[in-house]
């Protein structure tokens, strides 16, 4: 077998793509007129979009063998700040909406930078750092919002958030563009390669002259900005901050990345895998609900796929690293 082809086939991403295809095929077979429809597909794309945006940031981090548990809280914090910023500006103008966008990106980026500084400079392990910022960001979000969702989002933004371009939900298009750009950066640029290098062996990267601390700070900041963007898209889609609904987003993002074939131990990963990994749980949940299955089975299924993905990764790392 030709070397490039066999490398591609061996990628865990390929396996996961096949699994996704199998899942879709199964549900399509069971419910051809309800699951396999354009409108249901549109719903699935909508419901994957925000998770994908956040998972893009998580991909970079996990490739450096780091982790970010704070993404859900940062998303909530940014959406609260963004909603209040727009309310402060007042009105429905594009200006107000752009202020909201800026506020979400900056507040998300600020938390990301804090994570980066603590992890890269102060050398606090990522798990501990982001566990701390998870709590802090969530708490501050509650303080700022008084514990109640902020529900005044400009109408035009909500229209935008629920709109479609050529039949595809807008937020899904945005997520796809971001995932594609990020995937290209990861696969074809110096920044991407150094991300893999740091994850593979941080000390080797450092000795090769790579500014490891600076690189890690950029990655965590990027993840924060993306969480902020997720917060903005969430405001656009739901017209409200959704404080209680993002408590598991961090684990969902990590699940998506790991299911997609990126290794939790660093140095290996693919953005395409993350996209597939983001779809699998959403498709599973959607398919189960259409089947009328008790919701709890979804967790069992997603858990099984995750375990399968990690097992595959383990076997891969033990026998061959490609």
């Amino acid at each position, binding site marked *: *077998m030709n070397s490039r082809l066999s490398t591609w*086939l*061996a990628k*865990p991403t*390929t*396996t*996961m793509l*096949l*699994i996704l295809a*199998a*899942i879709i*095929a*199964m*549900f399509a077979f*069971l*419910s*051809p*007129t*309800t*699951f396999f*429809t354009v*409108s*249901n597909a549109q*719903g*699935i794309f909508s*419901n994957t979009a925000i998770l994908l945006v956040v998972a893009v940031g998580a991909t970079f981090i996990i490739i450096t063998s780091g982790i970010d548990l704070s993404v859900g809280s940062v998303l909530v914090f940014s959406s609260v700040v963004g909603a209040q910023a727009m309310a402060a500006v007042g009105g429905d103008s594009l200006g107000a909406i752009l202020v909201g966008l800026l506020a979400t990106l900056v507040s998300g980026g600020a938390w990301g930078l804090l994570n980066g500084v603590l992890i890269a400079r102060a050398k606090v392990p990522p798990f501990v750092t982001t566990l701390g910022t998870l709590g802090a960001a969530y708490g501050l979000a509650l303080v700022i919002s008084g*514990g*109640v969702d902020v*529900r005044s989002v400009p109408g035009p933004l909500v229209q935008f958030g*629920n709109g479609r371009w050529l039949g595809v939900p807008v937020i899904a298009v945005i997520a796809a563009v971001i995932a594609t750009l990020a995937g290209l950066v990861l696969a074809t640029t110096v920044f991407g390669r150094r991300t893999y290098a740091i994850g593979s062996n941080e000390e080797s990267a450092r000795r090769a002259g790579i500014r490891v601390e600076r690189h890690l700070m950029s990655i965590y900041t990027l993840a924060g900005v993306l969480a902020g963007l997720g917060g903005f898209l*969430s405001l656009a*889609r*739901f*017209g*409200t901050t*959704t*404080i*209680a*609904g*993002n*408590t598991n987003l961090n684990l969902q993002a990590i699940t998506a990345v790991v299911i997609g074939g990126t290794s939790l131990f660093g140095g290996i990963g693919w953005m395409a895998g993350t996209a597939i990994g983001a779809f699998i749980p*959403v498709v599973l*949940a*959607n*398919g*189960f*609900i*259409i*089947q*009328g*299955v*008790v*919701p*709890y*089975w979804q967790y069992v*299924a997603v858990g099984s796929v995750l375990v*399968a993905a990690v097992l*595959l990764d383990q076997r*891969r790392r033990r*026998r061959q690293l490609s």
Partner: protein
Amino acid sequence: MNIKHLTGTPRTALTGCAMGVLLAGSIGLTACSTPVPQASTSGSETAASTVAKKVTLILGTSSDDFYKAIECGAKLQSKEAGADLTVQGAGQFDPALQVPIVDAVVASKPDAIVIAPTDDTALFAPLKAGVDAGSKLVLVDTTLKDPSLAAGHIGSDYVLYGKQGAEQIAKLTGGKGSVLGIFSPPGVSTNDQGREGFSKELANHPDIKVLPFEYSSGEAGKSAAIVNAALAAHPDLVGIFTFNGGDSQGVVTALREANAGSRVNFVSGDGQPFQVEQLKAGLVKSLVIQQARTMGKLSIEYSLNALAGKEVPAETALPTIVANLDNLETPEVADNLYRPC
């Protein structure tokens, strides 16, 4: 084929495919088998001439006892009326989690959707998609900003809820002393109406001093802290009312720690199982319960009526019921306590 002999790529691909087939197979099996507590077999692509109407009930959360009681009522009514009921719900009361469920339910094209919406605005568009596709919509418990989308809404009379709480407090305290009300922060319409009813009723008792309201949405830790502070600041505190049942654990704990259980009369809204235990143990004097099971029953009745083209009232506000040790066993109270059936 002995896969041990295969190495590297082919073996991993094969294993991956095997897992994929296994997973897909398990999906198929769980789908084909009759899932757990449902009124009848799960939705499948049966012929259009089926008589049983498909109704999907989407709860606020899947594990809350209040919603379980609604589910119970819905199940009983579905069985009686011969409807095919499916129940869904997310783990948290949040639109970000409920919207994907609504999307999937809408795609499954049920005859009717009954839902306790977790946000009065965010759920509008997804539900409208369902109505446009031909499903009838009934709202239960919470409502939408624009409820005209639905055939009807069934909730509780929240003003009465607060009023009854106040009446109980006034009775128990002999109409004298300081009284504290703990509600969800302003903006939650049910609680806002409850506060309105509570305040209005207590205005009829001039010797009762109504302390400034404190806010908690069913968080025991928060309500405990609130009560601790209140006991310290107001030695003449004689009555506490919590609108949300989730807060009662915190209140009971704080009262016990301060040894104030006999001095302070505690009345709570909601009738979750642990609250019933508290009532029996004398830790709470009365409960103001919503007719959750009735809500569930009516939601199915209204759905089927709407499907049959019959009249359905746009707004139904079921009166709340005061439960105490005397009437705990009566069917009216016992049936509506919050628990699955």
